[in-house]
């Protein structure tokens, strides 16, 4: 057992669980509701900074700061949703991208967040056990959310907004709720990330991170909860496995992405193609 569960593999497992929580949130927004977001990392960063500042500056205990991080990220998502969720497809994607950059630059220039220096020596609270438990809880919550009336309405919005509206679905309200819950998940994941890595800086949450999360979602299968787990695990583990290839690592990573997309454009577990 010790050979498998050493500190290195445990760290990978923890990162997988954290990413599963975050991408589960993205799946609710982009996969289930069909609202393409390219700024998911911004909400992760809001969660990460919230938990860090609450703990370090205000001495809030971790178990209170963690849900608060999710709440504040969800609130930020909700407030962003008010103006931009009327946009569709690529217009929405570009505005979420813009929002992600705004958040990053704000953290970069604020003195409370120590700007580009970032914040170090964050207490290490995220154990593998906690991350696994929270990933499972998140999974159960998502499963129930997407398989009830609420989830059906969200999928209706994804399929055809006008038809959903004609059936009496209040699309503005439901998009906003999906956005708030999805970004809340990103906030929780971001908080766990901060307490795992113990150091955060604005550069950790650049748009490349959002793209990475979107790749995980698309690769695993948009709209599928199992697909999220598969996509996250594959894209977290592949770079580790490829360490032997040293400088060719990212080339092979890219190649793996390419091959999967050519042969399974709907993702490993999905049946939906993403429309930009």
């Amino acid at each position, binding site marked *: 057992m010790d050979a498998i569960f050493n500190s290195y593999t445990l760290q990978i497992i923890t990162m997988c669980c954290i990413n599963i929580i975050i991408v589960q949130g993205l799946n609710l927004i982009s996969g289930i509701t069909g609202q393409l977001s390219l700024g998911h990392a911004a909400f992760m960063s809001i969660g990460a900074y919230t938990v860090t500042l609450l703990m370090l500056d205000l001495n809030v205990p971790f178990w209170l700061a963690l849900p608060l991080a999710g709440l504040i990220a969800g609130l930020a998502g909700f407030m962003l949703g008010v103006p931009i969720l009327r946009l569709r497809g690529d217009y929405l994607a570009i505005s979420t991208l813009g929002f992600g950059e705004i958040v990053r630059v704000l953290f970069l220039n604020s003195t409370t967040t120590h700007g580009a220096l970032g914040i170090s020596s964050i207490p290490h609270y995220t154990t593998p056990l906690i991350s696994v438990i929270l990933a499972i809880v998140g999974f159960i919550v998502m499963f129930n959310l997407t398989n009830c009336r609420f989830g059906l309405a969200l999928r209706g919005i994804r399929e055809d907004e006008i038809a959903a509206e004609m059936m009496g*679905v209040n699309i503005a309200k439901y998009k906003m709720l999906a956005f708030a819950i999805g970004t809340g998940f990103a906030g929780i994941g971001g908080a766990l990330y901060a307490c795992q890595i113990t150091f955060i800086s604005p550069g950790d949450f650049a748009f490349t991170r959002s793209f990475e999360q979107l790749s995980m979602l698309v690769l695993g299968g948009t709209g599928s909860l199992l697909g999220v787990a598969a996509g996250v695990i594959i894209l977290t583990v592949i770079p580790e496995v490829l360490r032997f290839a040293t400088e060719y690592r990212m080339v092979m990573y890219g190649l793996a992405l390419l091959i999967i997309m050519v042969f399974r454009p709907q993702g490993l577990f999905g049946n939906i193609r993403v429309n930009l």
Partner: protein
Amino acid sequence: MLKVKNLKTNYGKIQALHGVSINVYKGEIVTIIGANGAGKTTLLNTISGILKSSAGKISFNGTDITNVPAEKIVRAGLVQSPEGRQIFPLLNVEENLQLGAYLRADKERIDEDLRRVHEMFPRLNERRKQLGGTLSGGEQQMLAIGRALMSKPELLLLDEPSLGLSPIFVQQIFEVIREINSQGTTILLVEQNAHVALQTADRGYVIATGQIIMDDDAKALLKHDSVRKAYLGG
């Protein structure tokens, strides 16, 4: 039941409806016929709250529903089955119908209506688990109408139910429309296929460039010279 008075709707600066007035009484089938771009769909979408009007008044059962959100209009019993079918392609037939009953909570009545829809369209029962997008055009139209019926409308708006269907399916769909009507649902029907629409309806309106240019009994319109020339091919 439905009173539309001097309704005007714009797309940006372009005015699509120039003061349309129509009435629909309880129990009727009323049709609005007209060419492409005459404003038929615009009119229905404005009535059902998808589009906002810039002037005029719409009232339903005596309540003003002008520019009320679509969701509240559905709740009041006015439901539209959209043009080009617009079913949910990646939801299965059953889920599509469930979304039709989205605003209702009375489980037993919903099941009862589901049975009624299945009786009306046995094909939908056979294909319960099939994805909406994999149905044929005619089946999708059945699904769209079935879905609208699941919300138990008092007034059903149908936007071009014959669009893209083979003649035999058109006959079938219109038989069903008559049946729905005989079971107590009032119907407002928009059609390019003027012939079959006027044969089915009690009364008709002719719309051209955003204005009602004629209204009469459907039978009278069928015989009317200018209608025959313009919409029935001589």
